[in-house]
């Protein structure tokens, strides 16, 4: 597959109508293609693991995508359709309950000046196997391409879910979030937008950089990591959690991104492929301080009762990333694909 280099001036419209992964996503996809109508209030919520179920997370992902770049072929009026929002709420409830079960919300109170230390504690307690170390030392080209496909579900809209928090903040934490997001959005320069840099990485790996191109290949365990950010970002009551999520995300970024870049160079890839990762080494060294101290600390200074939510949001991120990383590494160690279907070979 060869893909024309993307023109950054073009509208990056989402592509590809996703295939259903079960009854619920089939009903939803069928409905989205026409004008809104009242979806039945008793559609059955899939009974699989709410932290990774394919049908549940595709349905939730599509419900959220209506608020981002849209779902190809969908009638845009579905975005605010009450019956769709009611379904989304039921999916969110199942997901959130499972998150609370997996990661209890039981942190003792933390002072604003200590929140960066508490977040660091969360980062250091994370004993997940290191995907980045694997990529640095031993991943094959095919595995690196799979890694990029997983990440494309988020990186092509990088930073957008956290931007939902902006209107919910004021004063110092708002300024801190803007300081971070300005960088994420390239300081106002299109070609420096982190999502655009990631599209370049996909191109360099001979992958399709169009938004949504690999949705069908990405498993529920990966979609859950993206749905998590939308859940936290779209609910004002979870503003502490989205802040904690961003803080831990930034705090666990510079070092792994350095490893990903070295892994790509080991495999012979050049600047086009590594620019995204190299940029994140430098940018996130700034962001981790701003996010932990100024954003999280600033929010907790204003609203001390949110300290627990901030730490919970961070712990939940670590938990879902660990589950995702395990799934990918387990598959690779078994010589299998980590995606729902393997990719065509590069250059094929």
């Amino acid at each position, binding site marked *: 597959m060869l893909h024309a280099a993307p023109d950054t001036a073009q509208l990056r419209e989402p592509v590809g109508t996703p295939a259903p992964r079960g009854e619920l996503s089939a009903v939803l996809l069928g409905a989205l293609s026409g004008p809104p109508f009242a979806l039945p209030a008793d559609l059955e919520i899939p009974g699989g693991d709410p932290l990774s179920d394919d049908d549940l997370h595709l349905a939730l992902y599509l419900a959220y995508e209506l608020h981002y770049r849209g779902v190809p072929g969908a009638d845009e009026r579905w975005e605010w359709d009450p019956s769709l929002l009611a379904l989304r709420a039921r999916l969110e409830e199942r997901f959130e309950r499972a998150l609370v079960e997996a990661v209890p919300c039981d942190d003792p109170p933390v002072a604003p000046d200590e929140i960066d230390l508490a977040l660091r504690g969360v980062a250091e307690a994370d004993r997940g196997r290191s995907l980045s170390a694997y990529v640095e030392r031993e991943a094959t080209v095919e595995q690196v391409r799979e890694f990029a496909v997983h990440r494309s579900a988020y990186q092509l809209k990088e930073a957008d879910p956290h931007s939902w928090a902006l209107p919910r903040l004021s004063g110092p934490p708002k300024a801190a979030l803007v300081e971070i997001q*300005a960088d994420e959005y390239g*300081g106002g320069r299109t070609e420096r937008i982190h999502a655009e840099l990631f599209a370049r990485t996909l191109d360099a790996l001979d992958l399709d950089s169009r938004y949504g191109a690999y949705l069908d290949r990405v498993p529920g365990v990966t979609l859950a990591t993206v749905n998590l950010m939308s859940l936290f970002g779209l609910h004002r009551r979870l503003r502490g959690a989205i802040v904690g999520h961003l803080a831990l995300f930034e*705090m666990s970024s*510079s070092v792994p991104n350095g490893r990903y870049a070295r892994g790509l160079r080991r495999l012979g890839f050049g600047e086009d492929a590594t620019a995204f990762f190299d940029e994140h*080494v430098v*940018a*996130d*060294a*700034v962001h981790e301080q701003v996010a932990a*101290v100024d954003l999280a600390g600033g929010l907790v200074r204003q609203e001390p009762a949110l300290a627990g939510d901030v730490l919970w949001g961070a712990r939940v991120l670590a938990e879902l990333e660990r589950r995702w990383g395990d799934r990918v590494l387990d598959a690779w160690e078994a010589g299998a694909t980590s995606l729902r279907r393997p990719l065509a070979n590069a250059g094929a």
Partner: protein
Amino acid sequence: MPEHAPVTITPYRDGPLLVRGPVQLEDMHGNPIPVGRETVALCRCGKSRIRPFCDGTHKVVRFRAPTGAEDGRG
């Protein structure tokens, strides 16, 4: 940032110095070191692979330093 606002340099606890404001970074020969962003993190643990910038290695080496000034008597 308006021109009259002072440049600030903030030591973050156990981490880098964050520099905010319009600054020019140069090597000792006067050659510019491109910065490319509004806020920069300068390594103060000495272990970064991209000095003078921070690359997060301070966490790996468990660098410890206060955010305020040290008095040299500790």
